Each structure stands twice: as C-alpha cells, then as structure tokens.
C-alpha cells in the first residue's frame, strides 16, 4: 500500500466541483503518489465504477440526486474490500453535527489543498465506515437495497420490491423479475421504510402498492385464513392470524 499510488474516486453531482477536486488532487500528487480512477455524478454511478475498478478512497459529496453520499457509504460495505470514504460538503448540513460526534471524516468545500493532503496522508490508517457507525448518522430511507453477487454490488430500487421475506439467515427480496438474497434484519428494514411496507406475517413485509387484494381460504379441516394477492407475481402470501386486521384496514383504504 505504501508504494502503490493511492487509487481515488471522485463523486459529486456538480461537474465544476469534480473538476476542482481533480485540480487539487493534481496539486497533491507531487507530495503523495495517487491516481484518480474516475468520476461519478451520483452514488449509483460510483458503485457501478467500483464494480470494475477498485479504489482505496472515495471522496463523496453528501447531497446528490439518485443516491446521496450516506446511502453510498452503506452500499460500499457490500464490496469485498470496501474503500475508505471521506465526505465533502459545501455547507454544514445537519449531517455534519453527527459526523463530528461519531468521528466521521469530511472535508468542507471549497477544499483547501493543505487540508486535502492531510486527509489523503491519513487514508492508510483509516478504516471504512462501519455499519454500526452509519446507523447513527441521520439519514433518509435508502432508495436501493444492495446485495453482493459474484463480488459485485447489485442495486435493487426500493420501488421495485414486491415483498421481503425472512428465511433462516437471509431475507428474500422479490421483484417482478426475480429474487435476491439480502443479509439484513427484517425489523430494521421495517423501521427504515415505514409506510412503504406492511407486515402480513412475522417473517414477511409486503409493499403496500403491490397489494392487489385479499382472498379467504378454508382448509379441509375447516381452518380459515387470508392470503394477500400481489401485482406482478402470481404467488399469494399467507396473512398470519395476528396480522389479520390489515385485511380490513387496507380493504377500507382501497374502498375510500
């Protein structure tokens, strides 16, 4: 690491900000060997780039369309060797207070070359942000779920998710096209996405928008239970006895 040049990725939605950072990195390169592997205009683009070209350090803006910096930090953890991430921000957004409290590294734009160089020299000693630390930062709900497939990070837009079902160690993400396996907690997902999903069963969250209706089934023994019918997939999911109230609740919303 000490001999190889530092590999960097610049992430910012504003082209001038990326260009400025590149110029400053040029200025630093005489003091510290480094190479910019690319530029991305959003967190999503950055993940695409990192899939093919690994980096040691990601310099990322916080406020970006499509995927903001904090969400990017979460998805970076799914990479086999997550890079170090340093945030850049033009103004003390509310996130900064939390950065201070939890010792998250950031640079304030306009960035001074000296500050940048100091930060770069620190990189070999820094670790990627841990998931526990990221949980403490104020963040909006993610726009994507991410899963690792053949050492690449695959993003699943949250609006494409039809249901999330916990099975043993994993959660199955179901979209209209296919299934993915996710290693997260169903309870945490329920907290994060709140109103988007409704719990139909102890192990299952269904996207409200995907609910087509409910159907009552009576088994041979005379036990009755409800099943939720979904848009986009043929299968129906059982509604547990405890969650039966949602049948009426959602049925009423549809009627109104």
């Amino acid at each position, binding site marked *: 690491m000490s001999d190889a040049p530092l590999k960097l990725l610049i992430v910012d939605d*504003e*082209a001038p900000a990326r260009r400025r950072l590149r110029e400053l990195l040029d200025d630093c390169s005489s003091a510290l060997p480094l190479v910019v592997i690319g530029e991305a205009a*959003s967190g999503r683009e950055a993940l695409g780039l990192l899939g093919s070209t690994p980096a040691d350090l990601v310099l990322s803006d916080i*406020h970006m*369309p499509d995927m903001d910096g904090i969400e990017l930090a979460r998805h970076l953890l799914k990479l086999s060797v997550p890079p170090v991430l340093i945030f850049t921000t*033009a103004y003390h957004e509310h996130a900064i207070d939390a950065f201070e409290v939890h010792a998250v590294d950031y640079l*304030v*734009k*306009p960035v001074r070359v000296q500050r940048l160089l100091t930060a770069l020299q620190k990189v070999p000693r820094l670790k990627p942000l841990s998931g526990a630390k990221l949980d403490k930062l104020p963040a909006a709900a993610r726009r994507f779920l991410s899963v690792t497939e053949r050492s690449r990070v695959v993003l699943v837009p949250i609006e494409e998710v039809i249901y999330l079902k916990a099975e043993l160690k994993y959660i199955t993400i179901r979209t209209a096209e296919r299934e993915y396996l996710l290693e997260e907690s169903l309870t945490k997902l329920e907290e994060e996405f709140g109103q988007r999903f409704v719990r139909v069963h102890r192990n299952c969250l269904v996207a409200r928008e995907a609910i087509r209706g409910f159907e009552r089934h009576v088994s041979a023994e005379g036990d009755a239970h409800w099943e939720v019918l979904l848009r986009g997939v043929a299968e129906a999911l059982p509604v547990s006895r405890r969650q039966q109230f949602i049948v009426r609740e959602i049925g009423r919303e549809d009627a109104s």
Partner: protein
Amino acid sequence: MRAIVNQKSLPPRLPELRNLGTVLRILVAVNALALLAVLAREQHLAAVPSAWVETAALLEPHLLLNVLLLYMLAPWLERLPYRLGVMCILALTAIVTFSLSVAFSKLGLDPFAADPLRHAAFALLAAGALLFYFHLRAKALSPAISEARLQALQARIRPHFLFNSINAVLSLMRREPRRAETALEDLADLFRVLMRDNRQLAPLADEVELCRQYLDLEKLRLGERLVVEWHTENMPRDALVPPLVLQPLLENAVYHGIEPSSAPGVIAINIFLRRGEVHAILRNPYQFDGNHHAGNKMAMDNIRERLALHFDAEASLESKLNRENYEVHIRMPYRPAVEAQQEHV
C-alpha cells in the same frame, strides 16, 4: 444599526386611498360606528337592527360619495404634506356630507329630517378617528417595513448556494478565467442587492435582471440539468415591486425542483400585465422529497408578508401542486415607477 434604521424612518403619510384594503377598512369602520351610534340612541335592543338598517340607508350614500371623491382626489391628496392632507380630507368630508344632507332634506329624502350639521359632525368625527387609526397602523407597521429588509436577508440565499457557487468559480479559475470573472461579477451583484436597503419598491426589470444573474450562477453549477424558460414579452418593466420578490422563489425552485434529480428539469417564468395587475407565475418540476419543505414555507411566508406590507389586500401569493409541477402565482397591483417617484417628492 438601530440608529441607521431610525434616521431613515419615513415621515407620516396619508393612507393609500386607492388601495382596496384601505377602502374596505373605511367602509367597515364607518358602518360599525353607525351601529355604535344606534346602540347608544335606542332604548330597546330589539329595535336596534331595524334602526341600524334605516340609518345605513341614509349613511351609505354619504359614505360612498366620500370614498369615491377621496379615490378620485387620491393622487393629489397624497402629494400634499401630511398635515395639509389631513386638513383637506377632514374639510372635504364635512363639506360633502353637509351639502348632501341639505340636498336630501330639500328633496324630502331624509326620514329623520335631521340637522345637516349633525351629519357633518358625525362625518368629521368618523374621518378623524379613521385618519388617527391609519396613522397608528402605519406607525405600527413601519418597524415591520424596516425589518422587512432584514427578513428579506434571512429568507434569501442558502449558504449551501453561496459555498457551492464559490467552489464552482474556483473550478473555472485555471482554465476559463474569463468565465470566472463573469461569475464573480454576478455573485457581487447578487449580494449587493441582498445587502442594500430593501424597504422601498424597485422596478420589476431590476428584479428580473437579478434573477437572470442568479440563474446563470446556478447554471454554472448544475450545467444542463437546469433549463430556464423566460416569458417576459408582456412584462411591465417599470412596475414597482418589493425587492427580492422572485429570486427566493427561484432559489426554492432550483433547490426542490432541479437539484434532487439527475435528469434535466425546466423552470418556467411567466411575467405579464393584465387588467392593471402584474402577474408572475413560476413553475418547476416537483420532486417528491418529504423532508425539505420547512425552508420553502419560510421563504413563501416572508414574501407573502412583504407583499401585504406594501400592497395590503391588493397582492397575493398562491402556490399549487399540479401533477408533476409546482406552481407559484404572484399577483400585484401595477404601479409604474415614474408616477410613484412623483408621489415621494
């Protein structure tokens, strides 16, 4: 700071006699006074409503004639020194009311056959009370007008914009120094307006120029993501408007409508004159983004407040959400710059 503001505090002025708000206040107040008089006169509460209606029937022609005359004479009256203006209005109301009452009793239209002098006295008292009220109201509001300047500053320019713009200018320094120069000049102009005394109305053309400079700076940062459409062919360039009445709204449009999306978005600005009113309609794409709206509301409240201070009931600001667009509509009375300057002299 306080001393500076005080030095500039404005001399007392007559109420704007052509303002809808003023006219409404006069009509309501005089009728309320009549009710008070009837209440004092009648022994039984049950008789009050019919007595009030009778009085009103007699009162209304006097009141309307007076208001109409004041409306017609407004430009002349408002140019007089305050004290002289007050005297003129008092004399006018008393004389007009007296003459009309005499005419009414000659024609046998006055059921009470009251002494015209009594009517004139009532008119004089009502006019005096109203002038006193308008004076107090202006006094109560004038600190608000001086504070409007500070408020304008608070509602304005997000620090986020300032630092991102400076960063964008820095990015131009090495490769495109000339563009960097223009951008810094725009930034200087923008802050000159933000920091000056913004209590007085300013020509619409200046505000529009400011908005163009502001949007040029945003374009520097956002590139092709920001598309601006101006429709100002029928804009009255000389209309006087509160400074910074549009720029904060454009800033909101960029912040809420353009920045949250990586796809290009259009901000459309349509300014025109229709039936003596200046309309400004701003439209931007709406991005669903639950948590940003506090800042938006603050800017809107601020502008609404300043519109009310300057134009009372004759101006309005409305916003609505269409399917994909967010639209703000401002309506202001058309006051050309030249005439207004004469009023001040």
